[in-house]
């Protein structure tokens, strides 16, 4: 006795799977060619699966209300040798299987067995194109699967696509995910996920950075005269506020063909907290003198570290100051927050030779790099350079701050 498989037909060009809703025969039943064996449902229609030949039902492996991919074996028909001979030759038969090459078939089964703890897709085995490396096509099925797992396109950037035009297929994704299970994984904190989300959104823009060294000698001398002593970042905050008060356009946001000017010079400053960064906000910084801001600034730093920032001190700022010099770094290209055009950075201070025109010799002086990273859609190198030069000039005249 030979067996001929009952297979799930391709029920439409875009259909990858169908659900069995009724089985019309049982094992041992005699069937004839073209006889309806089961009813199946796609998202477009209800139809039937027919018998490919005369014979007896050997086995029905399909279950009611289960979804099966196109080409899946739903059961088998026991046939005479004569009927078996008349069936398509092994060479002619598996048109679908041959298009999906043996190489792919072999790996398809793997993810189903290895992965656990996540929702299994009902369908495997068909190469469905999806997006990974760029903003190219991503299939609805891929999008649904990624939404199910809470994944973003950026998470898939490490996958080499095997689909048409190098697209990442659902198989590529499943294999990638099953390989991840072999590694030690820890839960990313809410803070980490929030930062990731902000950075992803921010990175959709063309960002650029300009930089300038500035002498800190005057600032350090000025700092000693105050009690409590303001940190260098606060000087920078005030310098930025004054510069933007003179011309706020560089802090504007481009939306369509309109430049949205800032309503108030509310500025944020980055505070490192456990597994992330918080940005407390000082309001209307241009209206308040440096010495009047010190207490509030220190208070907000402490509240941020305790994650107890009051609502009025979060959100709505138009630019941010970050003192990456506290990590010992002298240069960096910070990324502005998604809703901001500018982030002003300051590197670590270090002694550097400064040419003294009067004495005609180098003298040692404390200096630091200022960096201005910006959305290049809003601002060009010239505009950014003029803003940064103005800020640098103010930093050398701390009494104006």
């Amino acid at each position: 006795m030979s067996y001929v498989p009952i297979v799930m037909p391709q029920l439409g060009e875009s259909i990858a799977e169908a659900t069995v809703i009724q089985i019309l025969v049982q094992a041992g039943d005699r069937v004839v060619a073209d006889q309806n064996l089961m009813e199946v449902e796609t998202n477009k229609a209800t139809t039937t699966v027919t018998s490919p030949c005369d014979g007896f039902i050997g086995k029905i492996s399909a279950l009611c209300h289960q979804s099966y991919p196109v080409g899946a074996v739903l059961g088998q028909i026991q046939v005479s040798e004569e009927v078996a001979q008349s069936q398509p030759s092994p060479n002619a038969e598996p048109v679908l299987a041959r298009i999906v090459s043996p190489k792919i078939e072999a790996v398809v089964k793997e993810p189903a067995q290895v992965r656990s703890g996540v929702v299994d897709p009902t369908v495997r085995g068909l190469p469905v194109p999806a997006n990974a490396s760029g903003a190219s096509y991503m299939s609805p099925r891929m999008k649904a699967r990624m939404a199910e797992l809470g994944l973003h396109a950026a998470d898939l950037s490490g996958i080499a696509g095997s689909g048409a035009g190098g697209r990442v297929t659902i198989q590529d994704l499943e294999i990638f995910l099953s390989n991840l299970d072999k590694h030690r994984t820890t839960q990313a904190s809410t803070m980490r996920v929030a930062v990731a989300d902000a950075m992803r959104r921010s990175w959709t823009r063309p960002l650029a950075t300009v930089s300038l060294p500035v002498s800190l000698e005057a600032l350090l001398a000025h700092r000693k005269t105050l009690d409590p002593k303001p940190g260098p970042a606060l000087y920078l905050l005030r310098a930025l506020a004054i510069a933007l008060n003179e011309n706020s356009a560089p802090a504007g946001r481009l939306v369509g063909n309109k430049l949205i000017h800032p309503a108030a010079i509310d500025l944020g400053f980055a505070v490192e907290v456990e597994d992330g960064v918080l940005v407390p906000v000082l309001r209307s910084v241009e209206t308040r003198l440096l010495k009047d801001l010190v207490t509030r600034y220190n208070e907000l730093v402490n509240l941020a570290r305790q994650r107890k920032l009051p609502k009025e001190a979060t959100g709505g700022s138009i630019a941010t100051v970050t003192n990456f010099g506290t990590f010992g770094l002298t240069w960096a290209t910070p990324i502005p927050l998604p809703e901001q055009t500018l982030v002003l950075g300051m590197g670590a201070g270090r002694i550097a030779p400064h040419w003294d025109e009067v004495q005609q010799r180098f003298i040692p002086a404390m200096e630091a790099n200022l960096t201005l990273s910006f959305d290049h859609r809003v601002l060009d190198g010239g505009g950014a350079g003029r803003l940064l030069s103005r800020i640098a000039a103010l930093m050398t005249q701390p009494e104006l701050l």
Partner: protein
Amino acid sequence: MLSSVSEVSAAEIVPQVSKDEYLRAFRWLLLARVLDEKLAALYRAGKIPGGGVYLGKGQEALSVSVGISLRTGDVYAPLIRDGAGRLAFGETVVEALRNCLGSVLGPMRGRDGNVHRGRPRDGYLPMISHLGAMISVVNGVLMAKRFKGQKGVVGATCLGEGGTSTGAFHEGLNQAGVERLPLVMVVANNQYAYSTPTSRQFACKSLADRAQGYGFTPHSVDGTNLAECLKVLGHAVALARTGNGPQLVVASLLRLCGHGEHDDASYIDPRLKESEIGRDCLELSEEHLLVNSWASKQELSQWRTAAQRAVEEAVALVQKEPSPDPYTENWCALQTGRFAEGGSK
């Protein structure tokens, strides 16, 4: 002038369809239906790759009348539902099955599903799209024949009523009208463009009314009536052949299947199915044969069995043929010139 009176007088001018003509057309119609039924079954058994099978159930009387009214040297660009017309024009059952089952020996070498096949060398054009794209192609072939000095040639192409709403339809008909080409434009108004009813498709009373605007001669026909279809199509083709310019034939009928076999057609208004338009042209023509004593019930049954046997034998043959091997297949595009009339091998 014939063209100005043809719509009203077609029945009187054209002689009644003879028994022989009717029987010949009926046998093609029956074979087309049996082949379609087999294709539907094969599709639901997962034997047809590519995801789409589009059948002509309910449209065969019209379709066969187009195919049978054309002759060697004519041009035919059928629609997805024109299995009957294709057979009548000269396609074989084996050829059709080779295409649908993906045989490497098929006209498209197993690379295409069921709709884009043809034999351009014989004037049987492979379909680009069923939304009017073929009209200008047929126009082009007819223009080429005109430039070569070939006379007495007709080109026919078919659309559904949905296809008449496209820009390609307008451009194609306008061009054929301006050039006064021997084009027979056949529109099967099967009431649904996929699931869109005619009320959402056109606002004119009859699509035949559009003929005037394009300089076409209009013809309307009951698409369920084989004798009427043979008469009207024969007349329209004869008019085009004898220099009376382009003809527009609009047939009223109902698609008796889904848009494709993946579609259960649950949107079709049951009142349409009960109406005269919803009658099955095969059953009607069988009645016609019996009433006129042109065939007995026994003969009808024998013919069906013979058609089924022919189709089963062809399926058995084609199923044993190999599908294309993607590893050895030559994926380079083919020069269409090779396939065209007069092209070198």
